């Protein structure tokens, strides 16, 4: 919001709740973001960092039918992404394809590859397997976990299996283990649950209240980072789910989102409702004090 002298800014017309890096775009640093406005025309922006790294350029601007609550980019095709949207009363999720651009900004409509209509309920997020090409998708709502098989060429998505989380477990989101195609962590009110997608059964859980967001370390197996409402960021070794390996103070208000750097060990980025983004250096092996800068 403040746009410090060293930062590069990019203005959206309305508020936005989500941003995703375009992993499949290996040539550029790109992001997709979508706006969250109840009563206005919502937009999806494709942003690219210029080659000099000095400014952010809008590569594409597309209108999106509803306000966007969650957005994530396909890890193997830079033109595909998923959104979770709401009309105010009901929720839906869809897979979109950005049409070929030929330089013009006044671009055509987004192409809807598939809509996950079979999933009714308050969808929280859609997950892609982060490590590469995989024809499965996961969508999570308050009570259910859906596994979809997606065929981009046929433009179809089908429910492969579905499981309810059981009474009194309101799922809020999740993360897909980059080291194991069959393991997913789902955050719920009082714990993080681990699911095996082959059996669609819970395998284990970390009992911890109010976890907002979780993210796997891309490099190291068994390492999960979680963000919690009031009590900051915790790093867990999943083989020892009782006690966190490390504790970071987090933000002055809720810590909303947390993500690990895919390249550099121990770099963790967190965002909080105190309107700050903190970058942490917290190597798990060494006992260094975590550093942070806003």
């Amino acid at each position: 919001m403040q746009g410090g002298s060293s930062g590069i800014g990019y203005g959206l017309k309305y508020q936005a709740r989500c941003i995703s890096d375009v992993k499949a775009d290996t040539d550029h640093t790109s992001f997709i973001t979508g706006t969250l406005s109840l009563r206005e025309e919502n937009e999806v922006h494709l942003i690219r960092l210029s080659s000099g790294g000095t400014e952010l350029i809008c590569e594409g601007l597309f209108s999106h039918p509803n306000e966007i609550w969650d957005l994530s980019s396909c890890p193997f095709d830079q033109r595909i992404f998923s959104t979770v949207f709401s009309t105010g009363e009901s929720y839906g999720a869809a897979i979109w394809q950005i049409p070929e651009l030929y330089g013009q900004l006044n671009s055509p409509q987004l192409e809807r590859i598939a809509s996950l209509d079979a999933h009714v309920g308050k969808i929280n997020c859609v997950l892609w397997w982060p490590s590469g090409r995989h024809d499965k998708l996961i969508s999570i709502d308050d009570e259910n976990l859906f596994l979809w098989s997606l065929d981009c060429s046929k433009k179809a998505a089908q429910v492969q299996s579905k499981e309810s989380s059981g009474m009194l477990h309101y799922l809020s989101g999740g993360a897909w283990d980059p080291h194991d195609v069959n393991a997913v962590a789902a955050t719920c009110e009082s714990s993080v649950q681990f699911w095996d997608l082959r059996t669609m059964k819970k395998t284990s859980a970390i009992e911890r209240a109010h976890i907002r967001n979780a993210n796997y370390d891309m490099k190291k197996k068994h390492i999960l980072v979680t963000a919690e409402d009031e009590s900051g960021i915790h790093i867990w070794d999943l083989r020892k789910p009782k006690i966190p390996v490390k504790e970071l103070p987090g933000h002055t208000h809720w810590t909303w989102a947390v993500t690990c750097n895919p390249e550099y060990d121990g770099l963790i980025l967190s965002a909080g409702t105190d309107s700050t983004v903190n970058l942490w250096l917290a190597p798990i092996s060494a006992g260094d004090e975590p550093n942070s800068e806003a």
Partner: protein
Amino acid sequence: MGTDDVPLDDKAKRMRDLLSSFYSPDPSSTPNAPSKHGTLDAINTTSFDPDQYMNLLVQKSNLEALLKRHVEMAAEIKNLDTDLQMLVYENYNKFISATDSIKRMKSNIVGMEANMGQLLDKIMSVQSRSDGVNTSLFEKREHIEKLHRTRNLLRKVQFIYDLPARLGKCIKSEAYADAVKFYTGAMPIFKAYGDSSFQDCKRASEDAVAIIVKNLQGKLFSDSESIQARAEAAVLLKQLDFPGKVSDLSPTTAHEASVREFAEAIRAYRIIFPDSGRQLITLAQDLVINHFETTEQYVKRRISSANLLGVLRTIWADVLLMDEVLHEAVLPDFSLEAAQGAVKKYVASTFTYLLQDISDVLLRVNVSPKEAAEEHPLQVALEASRKAVLQGSMDVLLDFCQFLDDDLGLLVKLRDFIIDWVQEGFQGFLSALDDRFLLLSGRKNSSSPDQGLTEGAHSEKVLAGLVLVLAQLSIFIEQTVIPRITEEIAASFSGGGARGIENGPAFVPGEICRIFRSAGEKLLHHYVNMRTQRVSALLRKRFSTPNWVKHKEPREVHMFVDLFLQELKAIGIEVKQILPQGLLRKHWRSDSNGSTTSSRSNPLRDDKMSRSNTQRARSQLLETHLAKLFKQKVEIFTKVEYTQESVVTTIVKLCLKSLQEFVRLQTFNRSGFQQIQLDIQFLRTPLKEIVEDEAVIDFLLDEVIVAASERCLDPTPLEPPILDRLIQAKLAKLKEQNPITP
């Protein structure tokens, strides 16, 4: 307008009566119980008679009025239904979780009773069998024991009778060691019965012993015997003489005498055997080691310095005595080393006890609040723990001073060490205290994996109040205790230097101060977090439960507001007991009557809102953004100070921020938005009364309303008069519930 107002008011009143009668346990306590029957108002009372009411209605009204009445009634019934539904809905969650836990309890308990019954039966049968065995063997055992006793007695008598003969035999075979052993063994009996039954035996034995003594003396002084044999003879002679000499002396003098005797024996021995120094040295050193081992055991118990000093003084006197005769043993140096260990252990154990005392005082906080709700349990706990820390530390210092003031040679030599140990001890003690604080507050559990399991369960039960006490206690230690200790140490325990200059002094007050300052901050934050989390849970329930898109028109301020204010009140009570008041006390608001007529701070309550098109919404959005830009930047997240106001303000700020974030996650219809508007408007006055910075509260509450309007499909606010009336109704209801507090 006036004609509109009256029925609405009536309706609201009746609704309130209904709800309050639903909640109040005793129906007769409703404030406006009907005094007369036969009116149409009696519909809400317990004595309502439908036939009478119907008759009255038909008699009094014409058809049109009846029809109107019918429509009204149908509407009211519908309203009541929806209210009921809402109540059911809100209680449903609790109900589900309750059934869940009951189910779990049930499954755990099933089968337990049968097992317990079986267990009881088995225990009973085991018990009865063991009783049977006991009784059947009892007599035989008695008998055997009796026989055994008799046999022992007979043996002893036999021994005494045989003694003279045995001694004679020993003299013949020169087995003096055995003879002395037999004789000393029989001594107590001779002393008791020597004048009566065993007179003869005694005399005969004494004669024999006299011969033995003579023989031994001859042995001792004859040069032809071996050194070993002469030493043995000396020891045996001493054994024979010893009991007779010492028996009349008091215990302390007995000790002195024995040492003196020992010294004399050494002296004599050295004259006789000039070469046997090494053995004597080990003997003397063993004695000293023995002394100090006992001392170290003693130190483990809780003793004062005076006690320890007494012990050391005795030992030192002994050592000096022995040193005179046996200089080669370097006993003073040797005992210095041993004393060093003992005193060091004493210092360490004293600090351990002090730590234990303080945590005992703090743990009592957990128990007391329930029994002493009227008083100020936290304040009492704070005072007690303050005293425990300060007085405890001072007592310890005073105690150690006795070591330094004493002129005992041993301690004079240890002086530098003692100073270092005391300084080190305080350093270690205060760090341990800091650790203990964190442990007690339940914050430590995650960082120490070995305790994680036990502490994890414990941390759930930690009282927020205790955390606050600990926070304030940390500050007290930083600001009062450490300066006092530093002063005392500078006065009495300066110097030292046994550690070497390059290490610096052992007690570093600056470092300890820093530890406690950060501990205090951590604990205060922890308190704020614990309290905020409770409110957050409340808010989460409030916002995630209802379907906001289908919300009904707001009828009254929602009860989460009451719960929220109740939590804040509890926090206020805790904080008032522990923390000092801030210096800056804000002036009281003159118009704190809950009126909503002012519209200064709410950009939404403009008549622009009544224009209904997208243009309106857009311009309004732009407006709020612009307003945000031009508004003085309000710092929401400021540093928490150790004052009542600052802590409460921080908690309120965090809670309102959470409230805003919860609102941002929902989508509202018009009524939902209006409900939020009403609740927030009601919160304004009571929040400002407890918080030091009104501007921030206004800002945050406005933010909530802005967020709600952004998340609303049709953000039309409530008309100010309606808002005002609903708030006044709530205030009146509150007054009714507790007439004493305004």
